[in-house]
């Protein structure tokens, strides 16, 4: 158990940081200095251990799904919540939840960590379960290369004691099953051949797509425990074990349907006795995570915020929207602050031609002109360009009122937009 005086000091640091309006990183840092073993001491009390989720895209939404599913099965789930997917963020969240005598009143921890912090974390605390979603081009200015990112996840896989849940269709993820602990095993999720082409790997982008097999010859992959079989609007079909199930989800975006397959796979490992119907019922209630396909209402019209961070994510988001086929006004806000990544070249790996028909109503953010330039080369017409995200958003609201809106935004632009929507304009969540 962690030492009482560390906890007392940590809680005090946290209060002080809050008063100063600061983030959660500093108290976490100070506590780690005071008691380097704090993290492992606190988490080792959990009877069901730790689940770690990592990968390029979908971490936050998948973490939310797993947490809510496990909670519905009666477990008390500790989670590091939104966005703070660094080790220090976990420490900070622990300080808040731990009792003064050092007890952590939960059964299991569900932690989301980016690839680099996942390794740092696993070096201190062996996760009991790990879930790896995908490895795609993202923030290469931080990690350098995709192969390197995959190696980082390999280090986490090696330190996972029970079960590693892997995306069977992502070759860099699939091959992590070669480096497990002697007693650990791998379980897979994936997509049926009918829908697999929707999730291409980065290096398949500029090569001709393989023809989609005809529906009657497409194969299910029996190596997976849970498989995304298909979907129509929000009705999603999964093969779980040997049976097919259908359920309606509140989460939109077909990439989230594959994330749901990952969530179902891991909860079945954690709580094997719980019936599939219970899981599906809980899954159907999960709402979008912070800024990830979240919708707010403005004069009865939905505004959807779609976080975009990398080519694969942006491509999937555009493909999802093209399928929805609404008459909506679209805005894109691209910042290049440290948290967004400074490199703009990723925009050139996204195909924007699906926006050609309706054009784009507004482009905003620090790098708005990089985005506008990208649009010029895909022959997409651009309505307005306004670098200031707040002003751009308000112009959208006056110019395009009466229309649903979809706003693709990088991380810091998303934070800004959300703050304005909620705090300034008091928009309510729409589900």
């Amino acid at each position, binding site marked *: 158990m962690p030492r009482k005086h560390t906890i007392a000091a940590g809680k005090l640091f946290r209060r002080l940081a809050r008063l100063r309006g600061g983030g959660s990183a500093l108290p976490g840092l100070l506590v780690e200095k005071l008691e380097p073993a704090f993290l492992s001491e606190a988490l080792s009390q959990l009877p069901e251990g730790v689940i770690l989720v990592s990968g390029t895209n979908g971490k936050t939404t998948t973490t939310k799904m797993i947490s809510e599913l496990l909670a519905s099965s009666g477990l008390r789930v500790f989670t590091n919540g939104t966005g703070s997917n660094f080790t220090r963020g976990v420490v900070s969240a622990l300080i808040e939840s731990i009792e003064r005598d050092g007890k952590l009143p939960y059964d299991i921890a569900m932690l989301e960590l980016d690839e680099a912090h996942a390794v740092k974390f696993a070096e201190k605390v062996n996760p009991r379960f790990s879930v790896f979603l995908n490895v795609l081009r993202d923030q290469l200015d931080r990690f350098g290369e*995709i192969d390197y990112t995959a190696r980082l996840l390999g280090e986490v896989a090696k330190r996972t004691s029970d079960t590693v849940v892997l995306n069977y269709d992502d070759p860099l993820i699939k091959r992590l099953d070669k480096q497990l602990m002697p007693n650990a095993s791998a379980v897979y999720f994936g997509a049926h051949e009918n829908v697999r082409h929707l999730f291409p790997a980065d290096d398949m982008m500029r090569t001709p797509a393989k023809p989609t097999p005809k529906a009657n010859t497409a194969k299910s992959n029996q190596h997976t425990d849970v498989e995304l079989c298909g979907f129509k609007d929000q009705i999603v079909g999964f093969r779980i074990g040997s049976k097919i199930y259908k359920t309606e989800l509140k989460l939109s975006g077909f990439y989230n349907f594959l994330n749901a397959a990952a969530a179902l796979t891991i909860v079945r490992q954690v709580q094997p006795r719980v019936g599939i119907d219970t899981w599906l019922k809980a899954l159907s209630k999960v709402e979008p995570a912070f800024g990830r396909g979240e919708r707010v209402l403005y004069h009865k019209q939905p505004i959807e915020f779609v976080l975009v961070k990398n080519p694969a994510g942006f491509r999937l988001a555009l493909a999802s929207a093209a399928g929805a086929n609404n008459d909506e006004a679209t805005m894109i806000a691209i910042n290049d602050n440290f948290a967004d990544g400074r*490199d703009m*070249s990723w925009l050139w790996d996204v195909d924007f031609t699906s926006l050609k028909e309706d054009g784009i109503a507004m482009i905003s953010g620090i790098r708005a002109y990089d985005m506008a330039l990208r649009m010029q080369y895909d022959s997409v017409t651009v309505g307005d360009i306004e670098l200031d995200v707040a002003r751009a958003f308000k112009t959208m609201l006056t110019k395009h009122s009466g229309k649903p809106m979809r706003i693709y935004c990088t991380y810091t632009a998303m934070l800004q937009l959300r703050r304005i929507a909620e705090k300034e304009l008091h928009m309510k969540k729409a589900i």
Partner: protein
Amino acid sequence: MPKNTVNILYLYPKEMNIYGDWGNVLTVGRRLQWHGYTPKIMQLHIGKKIPADIDIVIGGGGQDSGQGLVEADLQRHANDLHKLADDKVPMLVVCGLYQLFGRFFKTADDKQLKGIGLFALETHATNKRMIGNVIVDTPFGEVIGYENHSGKTVLDSSQASFGSVKKGAGNNGNDKTEGAVFNNAYGTYMHGSLLPKNPNFADELIKHAVEHSGQEFEPNVIDDLFADKARAIAKRRPR
């Protein structure tokens, strides 16, 4: 004079397209269209032959693993590529392929990847990545890009550079040189993508491509307002 086809060769799109290198191909293609010509994009994949009548060659960067895959295949085309360069065919190779257009690239695990020696230079892996926004002074004005490499490239004294670094590391972070040039073939570490944000340089390559196809280059006026604004902002951003 009617304007006809210009043939673009895109090198190893599967292995060497990690930092939006496709943007350079797209830019040459679109600008050719806007100037009234008909671009034809052809791709070179491992094991295949270089098609005849190529007017411009574009290639990008890859991961170390992609570079390893491409190394041997590129040797098969060394003669053809040398001939094209001697024939003043414009070329743009970025990052990974820039390194393989030199004599060799010595990787972090001390393996030597053989290059085709089109540029008189060599590259050694280091454990420090040079990452960030770059501004380079070139004969075509300021060229703006983004670099992300751990290889340090050193030019022979006989080898001309593409330009001199105003901001960023360039070839090696020491001698202020960036990239290399031989006839109309350019190698550089700048992606971003490079050509859309540097339309002057793009049109220089396009001019030589059009001329190589046996046509006169009669450009149209292209609205480069977005490129100008994007350049102005990129120049002010932190490294």
